[in-house]
């Protein structure tokens, strides 16, 4: 299977795809270095492919899904005030667009749920914290 990062960033606009891809490459290098050189992370040595895929998903989540959810939350505030349409720049968001965005985020969370992943696994700044989160996750 081709790398998950390529699948997740395919067809994204250049700027966003680049942002996600570069962050992924940088963190992957760092993650491989930490796993190869520190005993603390040695249990992940045989599982680098899983680390790689989960890392790609975490960056996709942090860069896109969180912002989609934040936007949906605002549209809910508008719905409570009986407003079903919104203009952001030249884009018009109607009820059907918001519904589609809702199902997109729901499908994402369904994957997390199926694999028993809490979004807190993706709450990290330094790559070493991501690896620590992964180690904790494996123990559960």
């Amino acid at each position, binding site marked *: 299977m081709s790398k*998950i990062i390529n*699948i997740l960033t*395919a067809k994204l606009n250049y700027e966003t795809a680049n942002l996600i891809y570069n962050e992924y490459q940088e963190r992957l290098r760092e993650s491989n270095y930490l796993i190869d050189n520190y005993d603390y992370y040695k249990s992940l040595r045989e*599982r680098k492919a899983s680390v790689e895929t989960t890392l790609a998903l975490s960056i996709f989540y942090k860069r896109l899904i969180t912002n989609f959810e934040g936007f949906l939350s605002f549209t809910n505030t508008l719905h409570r005030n009986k407003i079903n349409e919104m203009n952001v720049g030249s884009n018009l968001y109607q009820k059907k667009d918001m519904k589609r965005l809702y199902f997109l985020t729901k499908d*994402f969370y369904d994957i997390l749920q199926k*694999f028993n992943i809490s979004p807190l696994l993706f709450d990290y700044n330094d790559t070493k914290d991501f690896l620590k989160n992964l180690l904790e996750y494996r123990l559960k």
Partner: protein
Amino acid sequence: MAKKKSPFRNLSEFEKEITDFANKHRLEVAEHSKRISDFFEISCFNYLIRYYKNKGYTVTPQNLISGKYRYKCSPAGIQKNFSFFEIKKKVRGIEHIFEIHHNLAIQSSHDEDIYTTPDIVIIQSDSVKYTTSYYNTKKTFSFVESNDLKTFCEVKNFAPFPELLFNFIGILNELKKEYMIKQNKSDSPVHIAPSLVISGKGNKPTNLIRERLQSRYNINIIYDTFFEGRFYFTRQAGELRKT
């Protein structure tokens, strides 16, 4: 008992699920990803609305354009062509009305003829002014006088870094110079203190800078907006500093 599924035990199934998800939603993700920075700003705008709601204000969207909420994404444009939220609260029998706007220019608190545009501002109701003498052309400029600014928020979709934090103090100095010398300005009713909201998590140096700046000035610096940070606008709202 069957073992729980995980990316470690069931990698191919995990990758298949992600691939199916990507294929199913490819077009929408591609379309929405063009507006990520606007979505981030809108998320923070919504946090602020929730904050004021939790503080007992009534919040109402205003100035709908043909029944639609029209969000102003950049400093360009005439303010009356965009929507905003009105917030109201009765304190000791007096009703106070303010407005939450996005991307509206504010007059400097040092000089009357210069302006800057914070991402989100809370202003006195009905205080937006217009002039055609600001630019070289007759283009209309929308702004608010310094005295009508109650508070403001800057939102950044990055990981925090020192220069970003110190730049915020420059904006604070320009817009609310009194905050540079006075710790707690009393106001009625209270507002959230000028705030910098950042999506990324802090590290040791940026956490220390945050601590120092917050002890020096009456401001909030909130990190990790989509995880811990969001609770500051809801159940931990009491921990935020106010004007």
